[in-house]
């Protein structure tokens, strides 16, 4: 009989939950993990990781069709779509078993099934009822319960995914065949990445956004260049766009899209609905507890505590920003707080966001507009990749880097990047923001030459009137 009583029980094995379990184990706490489907959660299985595998394939496809400038010539370039998808699944599987291995190494027992709050024992411990189709329910107990059940795609009325013609991210990750014509609703990170993948694989893609610009959370100049780049790649981009009632046939869907009072109809093979996500709050036993739920997310304080003592919520379940690294950070913070360590609440202006479309987009902190709204007098620096030696050598000159500084204190309020490899570079600015560096330390930092990251240095200098190479 394995152990059923723990210091901490984690419900959900995604990047929030499994990291919480690993950290708890590191700190010498007894911890168990309840996971219903697969370790690694959406991130490893149906999100971050498999999409990166697909996007790598589409990048290769793009390069194979753009060999001329490098002096290559290739005829009859083709791909086996099944193998492209199979590789993506293999990558997920490898990482998911990696998580299982890490948990095993950390001696964290994993309970298969759905975990649910089920009252309190006489000595004040939380009871968690674990149910699974095949087996009898099991009751576990713990002093602390961390809920980390994540989120799923939002299904808007009229465009609910049907799994055949209307896809959510799930179906979009494992298609049987390449759709020739695709319409993507929603231009957040998920919608944009799928639009970019399918377009670069050769599909005819239309990206539809209800807001006035795509990637609405990014800086306006980033959205503008991204749209321009996508259109240059042959993608149709519609903003301020409203979706009308679908007309489905066996094979295709006709979608009326209204832009500025004008209605256009698009007949496509598949539609991807990427209109946000909702928290997995159902069947967690939240009813009748003091745990509050607002707009499908569990309400927590800055240290991830819910209204019930000893119950915590982290990651997507606890609300935006819906990012794996936010979940993992909250996991560590939450567990360390339980262990009595000094922790620091998350400042969301220090959480980077990355979108792996082509060109890549990465940002941290305030956009120029939001900094101004917040009352800062800003200094803005911009540096185009066309002026960067490495970018030219790589043939990746599309893009720019923008910095936003507080004129008064020299605080780096935000940084916004679009171009090749920017998702790998944003951490430099995140460190600067977290370490509270000012323009002075950034200007004094020696960046290696030749790298695209030199543009980060130049964008700092540019904010203070001194970009050297532009």
């Amino acid at each position, binding site marked *: 009989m394995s152990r059923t009583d723990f210091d901490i029980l984690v419900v959900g094995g995604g990047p929030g939950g499994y990291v919480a379990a690993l950290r708890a184990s590191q700190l010498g706490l007894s911890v168990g993990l309840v996971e219903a489907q697969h370790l690694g959660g959406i991130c490893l299985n149906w999100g971050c990781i498999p999409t990166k595998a697909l996007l790598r394939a589409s990048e290769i496809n793009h390069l194979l069709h753009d060999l001329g400038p490098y002096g290559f010539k290739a005829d009859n370039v083709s791909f086996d779509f099944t193998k492209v998808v199979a590789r993506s699944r293999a990558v997920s599987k490898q990482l998911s078993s990696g998580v299982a291995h890490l948990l095993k190494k950390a001696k964290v027992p994993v309970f298969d099934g759905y975990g649910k709050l089920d009252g309190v024992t006489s000595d004040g411990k939380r009871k968690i009822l674990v149910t699974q189709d095949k087996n009898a329910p099991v009751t576990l107990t713990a002093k602390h319960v961390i809920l980390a059940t994540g989120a799923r795609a939002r299904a808007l009325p009229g465009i609910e995914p049907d799994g055949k013609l209307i896809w959510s991210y799930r179906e979009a990750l494992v298609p049987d065949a390449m759709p020739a014509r695709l319409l993507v609703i929603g231009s957040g990170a998920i919608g944009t990445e799928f639009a970019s993948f399918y377009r670069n694989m050769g599909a005819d893609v239309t990206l539809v956004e209800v807001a006035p610009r795509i990637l609405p959370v990014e800086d306006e100049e980033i959205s503008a260049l991204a749209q321009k780049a996508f259109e240059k790649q042959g993608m149709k981009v519609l903003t301020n766009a409203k979706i009308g009632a679908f007309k489905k046939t066996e094979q295709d869907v006709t979608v009326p899209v209204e832009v500025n009072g004008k209605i256009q109809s698009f007949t496509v093979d598949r539609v991807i609905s990427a209109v946000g996500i909702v928290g997995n709050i159902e069947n967690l036993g939240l009813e009748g507890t003091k745990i509050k739920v607002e707009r499908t997310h569990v309400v927590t304080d800055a240290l991830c505590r819910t209204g019930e003592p000893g119950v915590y919520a982290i990651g997507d379940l606890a609300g935006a920003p819906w990012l794996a690294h936010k979940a993992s950070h909250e996991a560590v913070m939450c567990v360390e707080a339980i262990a009595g*360590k*000094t922790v*620091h609440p998350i400042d969301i202006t220090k959480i980077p966001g990355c979108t792996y479309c082509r060109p890549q987009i990465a940002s941290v902190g305030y956009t120029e507009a939001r900094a101004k709204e917040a009352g800062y007098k800003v200094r803005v620096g911009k540096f185009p990749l066309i002026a960067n030696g490495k970018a030219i050598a790589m043939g990746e000159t599309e893009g720019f880097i923008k910095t936003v500084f507080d004129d*008064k*204190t*020299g*605080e780096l309020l935000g940084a916004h990047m679009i171009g090749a490899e920017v998702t790998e570079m944003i951490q430099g600015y995140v460190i600067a923001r977290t*370490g*509270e*560096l*000012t323009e*002075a*330390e950034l200007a004094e930092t020696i960046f290696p030459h030749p790298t695209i990251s030199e543009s980060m240095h130049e964008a700092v200098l540019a904010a203070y009137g001194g970009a050297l190479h532009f």
Partner: protein
Amino acid sequence: MAIEVLMPALSPTMTEGTLARWLKKEGDTISSGDVLAEIETDKATMEVEAVDEGILGKILVTEGTQGVPVNATIAILVEEGEAVPEVAAPQKAASTASKIQETAPAEPAVKAASVPSQTPPALSAVGADRKIFASPLAKRIAKQKGLDLAAIKGTGPNGRIVRRDVENASAKPQSASPSAPKSGSAGAGSSTSVPHSTMRKVIARRLSEAKSTIPHFYVSVDVELDALMALRSQLNATSPEEGPDAFKLSVNDMLVKAAAVALKRIPTVNASFTEEAMILHDDVDISIAVSIPDGLITPIVRQADKKSLKQISLETKDLVKRARAGKLKPEEFQGGTFSISNMGMYGVKDFSAIINPPQAAILAIAAGRKQPVVKGNELAIATVMTVTLSVDHRVVDGSVAAEWLSAFRSVVESPLTLVI
């Protein structure tokens, strides 16, 4: 930031001592004022108090180690989550000395390495020069707002001062500049006037009153301590290793009890003068003079005659600790029927104390030192201390004072009375 806890000097002449006992374990959370360890000399057991807060990261000198040099690092305090730094042959004093050398251009730099420790001994264990860790942004904002980073508590990783700390500090009303106002007095030398604390005012008023209104007279006697110290060792050996029943009697604890016994024998000393009558107190409540950073306070061991040595010891330790932390309740230091002032740990030969009114007497205890004594017709070595009783002549006449001292001496020299 790691803070070194140094071996304190209990007297100006002390060069080494015994680390008797650690009262905290590695990993314990330490608040300022907590007693970390006990240091022993021939006469006194002194407590090493934490000046800083943190976690006791590493104990470098184990319990019972004798001959620990003054200013040697005995432990390391760290911040939450901070790793304990490697400490190789910690010689804080030497490094401070070499630093001073480096900044003195007149001295040849080569001398620095061989300069022995000349740092004045300090009673409290403190890490000397604290580097301020602050983010560049915090530094800049502090500069813009004219804030002193040294006065700001950091809440970032490992106590680093970050923007929010500076902003929170600037949100609070600025207290007056910490440096005291300069005096405008004329003269060649410069001086600084330090405004009186409330405690300083009370001390000034009460002692002036006492010394000018009470007709003091003084009687001294030499007392041999060897028997008492032998008994102390025996008694301490019976203490459990640890737990609530563990105790460690100090010489002072035993002298408190001895005074209480003497007061019971000669009750007229346990009295107060009033215009109408002499008040003879039934209870023997002994005030113990404790020096604290901004003055002096006298916590009281009540009914000391009825308490066991162990009770007195534990109670005194607690009172002194809370006195130094400024946490005494008024009833714990107001009242009392007799006072003891012990300066033995400072190595003083003898001194006389000012009476603490409305009490009638105070006993001044000096250092015990080995000296030749004549026993019968033989010369012998004994540990002798000089005690001086200051007496209010309105209450106690000279012969009574002498009788009291004689009783006190006989109790100390035949100390089994203390355990009956």
